[in-house]
């Protein structure tokens, strides 16, 4: 009886609620339009009629939009252009209330159950849907009710970048300045580490890098793409002149024209050629954010249309992902070890730190700004001895001091073997640990001692290979055998240019084997160089971009781990399974086929599977849709891309980009995207999640931030989201793509899904723009990484990986290897191919195909390394007439042009008649690049250095066939795989020669 009364009451309430809402809607819209001219403009954007109703026609309201005025009448009529139909009043109320309160589960359920249907022309239906949502966000979107107003009238907003979060000061719609974030009294106090009787606490602020601090010049760059453009000699209905890509100029077209061409071409090639005809890829990074990131908006869009994807090689990890994982697992971080609490352990217990191909001062780990700098300064204060092994006296080495050891590129493994040799001879390794926690050392020892090949791998043996005196290596091995040592192999428990050399797999394998010999996971014996593993709260949940935002893609990114149960959204699936291995994209297009091994972050054995292009039943790629222009700067032997783009095998090339640079110059149609400063997003400092789980442990503070829309999009540029939405509208996909939500709505939905909604209100967050997650008290800090393994107990560190099926014994016990032990002789490799001489079950030294004594060495005597750049984040920040160009360690202004820097020892230079500041041509059989010459004692003779990742591609003559002037060093690097059974690059095994350039060059002043 009571139930019946309640039901009746609810029904009455629902009916009244709906009636009231519908009755007042038109009046509300008119009132809001009066209050805000911008909202009035929104209303004026469409003249249409809308019928809102209950499916059985029991209730309804008919709205007419004319010239920005709304009129309403009650009832159901059959003349409306747009129809919004609710199954019943209860659903209508729940959906509306949910939208108001930021809880969207009822909305998603209603849409999935077709209890909420929106019919009508795409643009009009989408417009009406987003108009309703804008009502809920009226004061934010139209009254600018967000950010902090400063005393002088400037508004202070917040944004996130790859180089740290920033305060953004805006006046009169223009960015005045950006600064790191200085915390206020309300913000949580930081943690303290006590080590050797001293207390260390990080300052209450965030840090930034130069490419973070330089963002204003990127937003207002003269190279910004402000309008949709078409190559002048591209006629979509006639001659397309693909051979002129990269040569011909562009003309401005309207958005309508651009969308007609792009939408039309997507439909045409798919209908004509079938699945796989559209290809999409992008660089490895995007403007910071969660909703607008490529793992979110772009992922969802291309799932919706169906597209050939890119099989990414683990470009920064290579040797770790294809090598180290076989000894100890950790596939979730592509071969990098757990980070938990290692900063504190290192400071308290380590007696030495070896940085091996590790330069976090240049690379910031990844996304970590200058956070680690503060901790490395503490290590200087503690006087813990440090050693740096790198062919280049890198920034970490020059800042920290300590012995610099410079092996020839790609010979590091020989040095590592000699260190293991000394330990085996002297018995200075952890025998008890090796006996209990590892297996197969005796197999490796046979090789090291020379029992299998007659060559003991002594320090004397490695000296002519590495160029490092035996005395030095022996001294290091002896000291390392005595002292509890942290090994920073790469800048982030992985990475490092040595892992991107010929057989860099072997180097990464050697690194983890050395640490295992000394008791990996025991106090003071672990991985890291103070970059990763700070004592922050890992229980507070906020997603990284790899958690996929609103992609709804539970297979293609990490959405399936954390997002699916927190952020209600409809799923999205790409039904096309064709993919192209990234290192063979040009070959796939030009030759029609390509194959490579596939990287799998979830298993060890997954990487033995191949990606083959074309996939059965799929079309070759006809439409190439690229985001940004990075490949010339970042991919090996990159002149290949010029040849690919100029081929008639590609019928249409679309580039969506913020700036005119690199591959954008090879597109038929260019779609101008805006920067994060011009749109809404949300994010966390250095949190990418997914493949670098808990990457925010590089920071001194967890800082979650709003990414305010600080200014309006420049020119006619649009956010990536809005561009995808506009194309989706052309293809009838508008609801499928965005659920009718705008970028702002998704940002709010994302906020509501996270732990942020428990600690701060949406309104407060919109105002202040950031939140500092308090660190936990000392007695609740995370257990030390791998210490559970050293102690032989169940895994107790805060992560879900490895997958349950990756344990071959009991779940949670031991490593991811088949034995659960550290395997010096890797069973996975033994099972795959025990005779693969390029990757044997034990780690061996294999001479580089492009090193001293190799065949190309007869012509090219200089070994070039091209590590990740310091002053740009790959191509981001470089070029574009930005402030970064003025950093004289980044580019050199010679004769009116900012040249990319090429570094060499003064003696090597004088032998070639070269001097400081010369314009030089660096060349080999693969091409030539013009650079500015910097002479430095940071390199021994015979080794030269230039960063990868120049942003633009400016050949002095025919693209692909002439010297390149802007510094695309990767033109020179080999495309050969790191080892034959891996899809990895080996760009740091590269021989070149250099000569003075006497030819003609472009001038910077003429370029702008």
């Amino acid at each position, binding site marked *: 009886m009571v139930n019946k009364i309640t039901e009746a009451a609810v029904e009455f309430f629902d009916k009244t609620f709906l009636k009231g809402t519908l009755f007042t809607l038109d009046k509300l819209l008119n009132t809001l339009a009066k209050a805000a001219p911008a909202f009035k403009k929104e209303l004026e954007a469409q003249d249409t009629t809308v019928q809102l109703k209950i499916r059985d026609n029991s209730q309804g309201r008919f709205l007419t939009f004319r010239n920005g005025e709304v009129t309403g009448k009650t009832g159901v009529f059959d003349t409306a252009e747009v129809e919004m139909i609710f199954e019943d009043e209860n659903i209508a109320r729940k959906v509306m209330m949910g939208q108001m309160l930021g809880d969207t589960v009822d909305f998603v359920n209603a849409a999935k159950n077709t209890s909420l249907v929106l019919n009508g022309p795409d643009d009009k239906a989408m417009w009406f849907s987003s108009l309703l949502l804008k009502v809920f966000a009226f004061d934010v979107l139209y009254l600018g009710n967000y950010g902090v107003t400063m005393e002088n009238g400037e508004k202070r907003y917040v944004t996130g970048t790859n180089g740290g979060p920033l305060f953004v000061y805006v006046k009169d719609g223009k960015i005045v300045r950006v600064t790191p974030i200085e915390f206020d009294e309300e913000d949580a106090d930081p943690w303290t580490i006590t080590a050797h009787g001293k207390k260390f606490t990080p300052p209450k602020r965030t840090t930034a890098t130069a490419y973070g601090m330089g963002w204003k010049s990127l937003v207002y760059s003269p190279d910004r793409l402000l309008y949709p453009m078409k190559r002048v000699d591209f006629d979509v209905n006639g001659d397309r002149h693909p051979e002129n890509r990269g040569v011909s100029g562009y003309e401005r077209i309207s958005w309508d024209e651009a969308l007609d061409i792009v939408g039309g071409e997507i439909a045409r090639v798919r209908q004509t050629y079938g699945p796989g005809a559209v290809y999409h890829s992008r660089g490895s990074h995007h403007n910071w954010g969660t909703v607008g990131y490529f793992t979110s908006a772009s992922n969802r869009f291309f799932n919706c249309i169906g597209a050939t994807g890119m099989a990414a090689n683990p470009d920064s990890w290579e040797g770790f992902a294809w090598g180290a994982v076989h000894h100890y697992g950790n596939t979730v971080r592509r071969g990098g070890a757990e980070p938990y609490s290692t900063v504190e352990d290192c400071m308290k217990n380590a007696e030495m730190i070896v940085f091996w191909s590790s330069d976090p001062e240049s690379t910031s780990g990844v996304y970590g700004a200058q956070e680690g*700098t*503060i901790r490395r300064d503490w290590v200087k204060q503690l006087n813990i001895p440090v050693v740096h092994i790198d062919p280049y006296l890198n920034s970490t080495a020059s800042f920290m001091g300590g012995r610099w050891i410079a092996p020839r590129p790609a010979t590091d493994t020989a040095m590592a073997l000699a260190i293991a040799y000394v330990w085996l001879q002297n018995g200075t390794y952890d025998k008890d640990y090796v006996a209990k926690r590892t297996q197969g050392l005796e197999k490796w020892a046979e090789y090291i001692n020379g029992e299998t090949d007659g060559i003991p791998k002594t320090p004397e043996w490695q000296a002519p290979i590495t160029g490092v005196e035996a005395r030095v290596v022996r001294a290091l091995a002896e000291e390392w055998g005595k002292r509890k040592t942290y090994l920073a192999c790469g800048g982030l428990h992985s990475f490092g240019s040595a892992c991107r050399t010929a057989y860099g797999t072997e180097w990464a394998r050697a690194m983890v084997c050395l640490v295992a010999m000394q008791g990996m996971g025991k106090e003071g014996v672990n991985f890291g160089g103070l970059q990763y593993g700070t004592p922050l709260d890992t229980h507070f949940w906020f997603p990284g971009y790899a958690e996929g935002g609103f992609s709804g893609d539970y297979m293609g990114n990490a959405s399936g781990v954390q997002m699916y149960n927190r952020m209600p959204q409809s799923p999205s699936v790409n039904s096309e399974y064709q993919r192209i291995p990234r290192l063979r994209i040009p070959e796939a297009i030009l030759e029609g086929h390509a194959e490579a091994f596939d990287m799998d972050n979830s298993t060890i054995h997954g990487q033995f599977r191949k990606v083959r292009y074309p996939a059965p039943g799929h079309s070759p790629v006809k439409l190439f849709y690229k985001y940004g222009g990075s490949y010339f700067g970042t991919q090996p032997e990159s002149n290949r891309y010029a040849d690919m783009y100029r081929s008639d095998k590609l019928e249409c090339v679309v580039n969506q980009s913020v700036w005119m640079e690199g591959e954008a110059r090879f597109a038929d149609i260019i779609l101008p995207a805006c920067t994060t400063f011009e749109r809404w997003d949300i994010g966390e400092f250095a949190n990418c999640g997914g493949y670098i789980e808990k990457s925010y442990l590089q920071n001194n503070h967890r800082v979650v931030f709003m990414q305010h829309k600080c200014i309006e999009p420049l020119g006619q540029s649009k956010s990536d989201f809005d561009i995808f939405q506009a194309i989706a509208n052309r293809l009838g996909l508008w609801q499928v793509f965005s659920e009718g939500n705008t970028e702002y709505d998704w940002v709010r939905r994302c906020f509501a899904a996270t732990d942020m909604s428990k600690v701060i209100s949406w309104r407060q967050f919109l105002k202040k723009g950031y939140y500092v997650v308090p660190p936990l008290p000392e007695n609740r800090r995370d257990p030390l990484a791998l210490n559970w393994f050293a102690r032989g107990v169940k895994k107790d560190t805060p992560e879900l990986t490895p997958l349950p099926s990756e344990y071959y014994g009991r779940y949670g016990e031991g490593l991811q290897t088949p034995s659960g032990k550290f395997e010096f002789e890797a069973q996975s490799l033994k099972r795959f191919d025990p005779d693969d001489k390029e990757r044997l079950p034990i780690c061996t030294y294999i001479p580089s195909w492009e090193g001293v004594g190799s065949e190309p060495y007869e012509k090219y005597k200089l070994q070039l390394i091209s590590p990740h750049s310091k002053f740009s984040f790959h191509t981001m920040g470089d070029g574009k007439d930005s*402030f970064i160009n003025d950093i004289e360690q980044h580019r050199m202004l010679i004769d009116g042009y900012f040249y990319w820097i090429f570094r060499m020892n003064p003696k090597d230079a004088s032998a070639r008649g070269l001097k400081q500041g010369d314009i030089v041509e660096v060349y080999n059989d693969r091409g030539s690049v013009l650079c500015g010459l910097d002479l430095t004692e940071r390199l021994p003779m015979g080794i030269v250095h230039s960063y990868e990742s120049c942003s633009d591609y400016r050949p002095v003559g025919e693209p692909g066939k002439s010297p390149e002037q802007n510094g695309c060093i990767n033109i020179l690097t080999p495309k050969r795989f790191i080892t034959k059974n891996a899809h990895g690059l080996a760009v740091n095994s590269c021989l070149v020669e250099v000569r003075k350039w006497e030819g003609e060059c472009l001038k910077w002043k003429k370029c702008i």
Partner: protein
Amino acid sequence: MEKVHLVVDLNKCVGCFNCMVACKDEHVGNSWLPYTEKQQKHEEKWINPVKHERGTPPFTDLCYVTEMCQHCAEAPCEKTCPDAVHRRPDGIVLLDPEKAKGNPELVKACPFGMISWNEELETAQKCTMCAHLLDAGWKEPRCVQACPLRALSIVRCEDSEFDKLVEDQKLKPLYDGNHQPRVLYRNLYRYTTCFISGALAYKKDGVEKAAADAAVRLKLDGEILKEVHTDFFGEFKIDRIPKNSGTFEIEGLMPGYRPVCCEVTVKDESPCLNVMYFEAS
């Protein structure tokens, strides 16, 4: 009255160039009159960390020396162009934007090259210590605020107090002269002096070993100037040796072995000695 000083620590500068970029961020595209006009986007810098190398591999030492207006108490620019230069009570030296316009003489007036010429606006310009922000309540100028380790730091105090700091922390001016800069440098020896480096080794059972913890003496005319011990690599580095300071004797001592020695002349460069081998006595 309290004066504004800026201290640069060479050992805390990581060469991130945030200072230069932050300065551009504040001053390019923004006019802060009456303090200063806009900075030119390129080819003009008011602050710049300049790389300085000493020694050769593997003993190369690298630091950055931040060059900027020294905000001199006895400013040479003020002496040459008193009308165009204004020294505030807090010590910050500013150019008068109106009088700096079309006045290239000002550029020459700074013997350290810290006044630049803005070609676009045809005016002389330099670092203002972000006085427009300090006057509005900011605690630090932009370069300092962006510096991760505060290798650049602001010290506000009376002259007498600062003199004590200079004494205690051995702060040095970047340039010689009587201009009394308010920008001073810590650990400037990495820029102004040389070091001698080398390695000691011995043979044992046919294997070459590093002579760890051996004594190394720096001698001049038979007098011991300094004694250090080798590290576990058998290597040593004796720093803070003035340039062009003469010919020294380096002596290595290890119990049970005959002393080794060699001569080394220090000129402009930091010499790296060949490995010296001990032989059993």
